[in-house]
């Protein structure tokens, strides 16, 4: 029987899943996913995690609980840095420790460490360490890694064509919003693409005939080009991407407005949110900050999004409805 590797559909799932899937499947494992976020996952996550964790971290715990009894391994990498001289949120460094100490009866946790702050060698070691849980064949591990990288690049290309990660994973077609209003929807991928946590914001915006561009739909080279112009290097990889994306979308006149979705209690968003807001407003572009949390009332988000989109349409057409 194939070893079953469980991947929680939370946090960096939205950035790396196609890569992880290819890697473990090439090694002969079977991938098992948690359910898409639902109320039970949210409740389980909230009940078991520490109370000052942010919503996405709580959701991650809920996804682990959903998966743990159905798999032989749980893949929870310890990601410290994915790019030279940059970090990702400190909660990711402690993620496997947090999960192990808070969730009982876990299967084996694959908690390899990726820290590329100084050089790439840690990635090579992480790949090897992760592969060894499934096979002793080093050559096979490297070839699986090579083809998984290719999958990641294909996945990123598809997003650059305008697909959300879920659409890119499931073979969606680029949306047909060639004309009409577009807005920039930015924020951590696990906030904006998790339809439950985001209260389905993408569908709500598109449902009004308004297109969206997220930071993941922008070429990496553009992000890097703009990030270099910052007065001070942004050392958070996600923060850098979010800031550069908002700048790019405005400067290239790709969007009429920006919605930034943040999770309550996110330290990074608290800072980056304000930086982005100041820069966006200075350029006279409409900006809206949406905070998501554990509450299930959609009215607050709906009213803000609706009013924001009304405002954009109003500006665009100089008319009422």
């Amino acid at each position, binding site marked *: 029987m194939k070893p079953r590797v469980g991947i929680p559909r939370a946090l960096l799932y939205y950035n790396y899943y196609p890569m992880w899937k290819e890697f473990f499947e090439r090694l002969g494992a079977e991938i098992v996913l948690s*359910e898409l976020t*639902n109320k039970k996952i949210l409740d389980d996550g909230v009940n078991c995690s520490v109370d000052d964790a942010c919503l996405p971290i709580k959701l991650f715990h809920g996804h682990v609980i959903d998966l743990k009894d159905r798999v032989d391994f749980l893949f929870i990498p310890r990601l410290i840095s994915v790019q030279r001289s940059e970090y990702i949120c400190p909660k990711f460094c402690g993620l496997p420790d947090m999960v192990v100490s808070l969730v009982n009866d876990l299967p084996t946790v694959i908690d390899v460490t990726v820290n590329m702050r100084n050089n790439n060698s840690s990635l090579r070691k992480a790949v090897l360490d992760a592969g060894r849980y499934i096979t002793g064949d080093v050559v096979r591990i490297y070839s699986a890694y090579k083809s998984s990288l290719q999958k990641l690049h294909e996945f990123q290309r598809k997003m650059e064509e305008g697909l959300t990660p879920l659409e890119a994973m499931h073979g969606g077609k680029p949306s047909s919003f060639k004309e009409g209003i577009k807005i920039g929807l930015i924020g951590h991928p696990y906030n904006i693409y998790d339809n439950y946590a985001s209260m389905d914001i993408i569908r709500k915006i598109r449902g009004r005939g308004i297109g969206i561009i997220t930071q993941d739909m922008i070429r990496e080279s553009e992000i890097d080009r703009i990030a270099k112009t910052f007065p001070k290097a942004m050392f958070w990889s996600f923060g850098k991407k979010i800031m550069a994306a908002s700048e790019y979308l405005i400067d290239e006149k790709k969007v009429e407005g920006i919605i930034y979705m943040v999770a309550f209690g996110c330290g990074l968003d608290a800072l980056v949110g304000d930086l982005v807001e100041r820069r966006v407003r200075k350029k006279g572009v409409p900006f809206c900050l949406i905070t998501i949390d554990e509450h299930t009332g959609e009215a607050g988000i709906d009213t803000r999004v609706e*009013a924001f989109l009304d405002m954009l349409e109003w500006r665009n057409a100089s008319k009422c*409805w």
Partner: protein
Amino acid sequence: MKKSYYLGVDVGSVSTNIVLVDDNRELVYRDYLRTMGQPIRVIQEGIRALRSRMGDIDIKGAGATGSGRNLAGIIIGADIVKNEITAHAVAALHINPEVKTILEIGGQDSKIIILRDGIVSDFAMNTVCAAGTGSFLDRQASRLGIPIEEFGALALKSTAEVRIAGRCAVFAESDMIHKQQLGHKTEDIILGLCSALVRNYLNNLGKGKEILEPVIFQGGVAANCGIVKAFEKELGLEVNVPPHHDVMGAIGAALLSADAAERKGYTSFTGLDIVECEFSVRPLDCKGCANLCEVIEIMKNGEAVACWGDRCGRWSNRMTKLA
């Protein structure tokens, strides 16, 4: 020729407002009712009162707004269901096409709307915290045994304002009790509270926004002259309170419905006899998946007319198909 009218209904957390505007977009009828947690009954009562005052009139369009707008929209058969921000902006522009800033404080939320050249250019709404909104003032008034209507006038009598913390309603309350136990006069404490709320509002919502004249202050709290004075002092600008400040949302909904009905060429308004209909709600706790959505079905004379609360659309889509 028989005159025709447009109906606007604003169902808020504290009040439900019903207005009529005529063909010339002039306000001809207004009613301010307490929602009392019973939006359906209050809407029906409001329509009944409207019918007995105005008779059987020709309503050519109906609009709904407020936090209960979807429910209200179903009951009256609204031609347009719009959020409060847009409705308030439309109503304020109708009164003064030059308006550049709208301050709005309602029962449980507060907003600031910035307009330039007759269109909304920016807005902000308070977050989950309701400090500084009408229901908080209501509560403090009743704690001090002062009718809310006299609250503002009493504040104006003050000669020595005391400082109250306005960041949070709970802290404000304990600060007020503390000042009261020290022996400060009630009117000084009340003026202090008005200033604290205004400070909190401007820090939260006004942050980084350019507040220019003309400024219009609307919503139920605009009736409080203490708050108006505190705004003028803090902003250094003239703050105008329109005569129908407390029903502006409903006026906006009525104005929007006139355009919507005109565009459609007909109205979906169900008619004034909705007061005879029996509305009820039926909770359907969906067990279809782990989301366990709290779905509810709105029934009119025993027949389902709307349904919402489901995330997947399993129930609400079924309704759309029926319609």
